[in-house]
Structures are given as C-alpha cells and as structure tokens.
C-alpha cells in the first residue's frame, strides 16, 4: 500500500513541476506558433538563479522572485530583439531557440559549474509529514499545492480577465485582434515573458527535487514536449492532463521498469496520439 501512496504522490509532485513548466510552453506555442527549444533553458536558469540568490540571502522567496523576474526579462528581450523578426516563420524560430539552448547551457556551465546542485528548500517546508500512515516530505506536498494554485490562477487569468480573452482571441485569429485595435506584438512579448517566467518557476519549485545540472534543461524540456504533445498544443487544460499522465507514468515506470525509463513515457504519448492526433484537449 505504501508503494502506491508514495509513488502516486511522487508522480503528482513531478506532474505539478511539469505542469508549471509546460503551461508556458503550450501558451507560447498556442499564441505565436513558436516551438521554443530553449524553454528548458529558462527552467535551468530559474533554478540556478534561485540557487545563487538563496545561498546569498538565505531566503527562498527572494530566490523565487528574483529568478522569475530575471528570466521574464530575458524572455522579453529574446522575443523583442530576435523572435519578433521571425514572426510566423516556424523553422527559423525553432532553430534560433535551439541555438539559444546551447548558448544558455554553456553560460550556465561557465557560471555554475558541472556538478549537480540541489536548490535549498524553504526552511518551513523541511521535514516529513504523515499521509495515510506513510511518512512523506512536506516540500513535495507543498509543490502539489503550488501546482494546483498555479493551475487555478492560470485558469482565472485566461478565462476571467480581459487580457486572457485577448490572448485566446489572438490564438484563434491574430489578424482580427489587430483589426480591433490591439497592439498584438505587445501581447506576444508579454506572453513570451510570462511563459519564460513560468518555466523559471518550474525550475525553482523543481530544483530542490530534481536538482540543477548541465543537461537538466534538455531532460525537462523533453518531458515538457511530451506533456504538451499528449495534452494538445495550445491548451492549458491539456498541459494539466498531460502533466498528470507523464508525471505518474514516469514514476511508476521508473519503479517497475527502471531500465526503460524514457520508453515508459513515450509509449503513452504514442497511444494517445494514435487515438487523438490533436492530443487530449487539443485545439482542432
């Protein structure tokens, strides 16, 4: 019984980190058709910046805020100065972000070195608690709560605010939004920055669990791409469902067939796509 409880909770906490990460990826794709290869780099930078700030200041919150803000600014700059010029050119955009992936990976290696480092947990979330008679780390439970909180917040933002309506309208028909007096390039920049910030938040939340190391960017990006493909490109609800699936399958897969770790994640993706080519909640 404790095997099921622990692995389910582990799966859920990984799923929530993946959700925070993938939500940004899927929103950016849905609005701008950018396949952002550097999304994992934002995750990595988020984790590393938080690590340095927490080590210097001792405050997890300071690390979280600094990391998210810094990566958002970086994202805004990348979109404004580079991606904006390649609007609607999917291949050049993908290649550009692939280049950024390598550059950011090298810069991170140069600044933070090659050893795996755990982002320190906030002191108040240290230790374990008992869930259904099983001892379980408080921090992982907090991540599950945090992921659900982000999911609700995103839903409210998209479905209940004017900006959210504009973003959805932009996903449906960008040109018509421009004809309604909306400065859509500004929304694009804002959304790319927001997506980068979500990736950084994923890095900060996941840092104490998964650690930061050269290659972590690529590892999580791969999972995030599986999540948004399974969930359906452009859909936050899809990213949520996809994250749950990938998080749980990855954990149980690693427990049962440790030698086939990535295989157990890819197989469900293939099955979902065979049945629903647009993903679980994809836009047609």
């Amino acid at each position, binding site marked *: 019984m404790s095997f099921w409880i622990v692995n389910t909770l582990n799966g859920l906490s990984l799923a929530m980190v993946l959700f925070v990460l993938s939500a940004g990826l899927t929103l950016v794709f849905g609005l701008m058709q950018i396949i952002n290869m550097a999304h994992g780099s934002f995750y990595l930078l988020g984790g590393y910046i938080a690590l340095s700030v927490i080590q210097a200041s001792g405050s997890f919150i300071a690390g979280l805020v600094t990391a998210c803000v810094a990566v958002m600014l970086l994202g805004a700059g990348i979109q404004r100065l580079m991606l904006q010029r390649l609007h609607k050119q999917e291949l050049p955009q993908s290649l550009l972000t692939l280049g950024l992936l390598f550059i950011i990976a090298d810069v991170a290696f140069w600044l933070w070195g090659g050893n795996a480092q755990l982002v320190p947990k906030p002191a108040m979330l240290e230790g374990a608690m008992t869930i259904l008679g099983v001892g379980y780390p408080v921090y992982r439970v907090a991540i599950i709560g945090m992921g659900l909180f982000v999911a609700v917040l995103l839903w409210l933002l998209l479905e209940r605010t004017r900006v959210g309506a504009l973003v959805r309208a932009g996903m449906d028909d960008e*040109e018509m939004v421009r004809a309604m007096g909306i400065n859509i390039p500004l929304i694009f920049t804002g959304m790319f920055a927001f997506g980068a910030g979500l990736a950084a938040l994923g890095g900060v939340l996941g840092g104490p669990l998964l650690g930061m190391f050269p290659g972590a960017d690529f590892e999580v990006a791969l999972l995030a791409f599986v999540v948004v493909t399974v969930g359906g490109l452009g859909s936050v609800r899809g990213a949520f469902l996809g994250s749950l699936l990938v998080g749980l399958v990855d954990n149980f897969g690693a427990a049962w067939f440790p030698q086939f770790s990535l295989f157990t994640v890819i197989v469900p993706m293939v099955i979902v796509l065979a049945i629903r080519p647009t993903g679980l909640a994809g836009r047609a």
Partner: protein
Amino acid sequence: MSLAPGAPAAGVEGCVPEALRVDDLHAYYGESFVLQGVTLSVKAGSIGVVLGRNGVGKTTLMRSIMGLTPSRRGMVVISGRDVSTWAAHQRWVTGLALVPQGRRIFPSLTVREHLEIGLRAPRGQREAHWSVEAVFDTFPRLRERAGNRAATLSGGERQMLAVGRALCANPDLLLMDEPTEGLSPFIVDELTRLIATLKGQGVSILLVEQNLDFALGVADWVHVMEKGRIVHQCAPLALLADEAVKRRYLGL
C-alpha cells in the same frame, strides 16, 4: 452630387468632409498584383458600396484600408489623416472598425467576450450609441447566447456577432465585407434597417457586396471594381438602369 476621384481633402470650401479617401492604392497578395491603383472616397455620413465580380480585389481593398494587407503605393486617408504607413491597431484609433469577410469570430470566446473586447468609447463629441446592451437590443438572439462560446453559434448568429463586435467600437467609419453572405432574407432585411440606423447616427460605411439588391438599397454611391481598379462610379439608381455596366462588370 460631385464625387470626383481625388477630390480635395476634409472640408475644403464647405464640401462635405471625406471619411475615407483612397488614392492610387497598389497592393499585392503573394505574387499576384491585386490592387492596381484604386481611387475612391466616402463622404462623411454616407454609404459607399464597392461592387464587382469575385477576385477583382474587393477584399484586398478592405484589408488594405484596415492596414492588414500592406500597400506598395498610394494613400489611405481617414478623416483627413494620412494613415498609409500605420499598422492596423493604430488605424483603429481613427474610428475604424471592420466586419471582415467570412465573419472571423473567435471560436474560443463567448459571445459577450467578443463584444467586451471590442468596446471603445466614441471619439470626440460623438454620442456613445453602442454598448454590449445596445448590441443585444439590436440582436436579441445574441443576448440569449451571451455566455456561449462562439464555436457553437450558427452561421447567421456568427454574422450578427461579427457586426455587433464592430458596432461595439462605436465606429466613425465602418468597413463591411460581404455582410449578407449566407444570410437568410429575413436577416438581410434586419441588416438593411441597421445600416439605416447607423447612417442616422452619422457613421460612414464602405460596403463590399455581391447581393446587388441589398447593396443598391443602402448605397449613396456605387463604385464598380474590375481587375484591381475602380472602373465606374455612379449613383445606385443610375447603375440599376445601366445594363451595359451591369453586364460588363457584374456579369448580370
């Protein structure tokens, strides 16, 4: 009624000012040369209609005026301001609104959201005739579906929504690209009445149409388009009587 191409701009010597003047406009769509020097104008508070067969460039003309298709040469002047180099969202500020061909509603937005994101205060001293509620009063069917996603609307409802969305902008100059396409005669009649109402509110309209009866019923002035140019201009009644023009340019 003198409305010569390239007539003097806004209000010179007591003329009725022009809401829109298009001067020698050239535009391409991909490789093909779609607008080959379009010149026309719409007097403030009047309704201009562009007629012509399919593929003569009518929709490209509307897109170029809105700023969605870049023009290679020529000028677009709205209320006396040269907006030729402006982006679509900047042109919108001059009081422009578009009812595009094919409705182009946003499937994932509710009916009410369409109207809310379209809202704009009227410019200058103009009265605010349009609000979400005013659109619902004009199209009661939309009120019934206010909370529904537009993806679930019927064709006629979508057209009402496309018109209502543009009305919420309290436009000074309304561009309508084939608003009667696929509508039942009953809704076409409603649209005719609506256009008369808008005219009464001082809104200038440029209308592209295939439905000749509807178009001539609302028009103050008719522009006939052929191969990317305006080839004939006249009053609606004159066109009705001119079998040669109708046969040659409209295929009637």
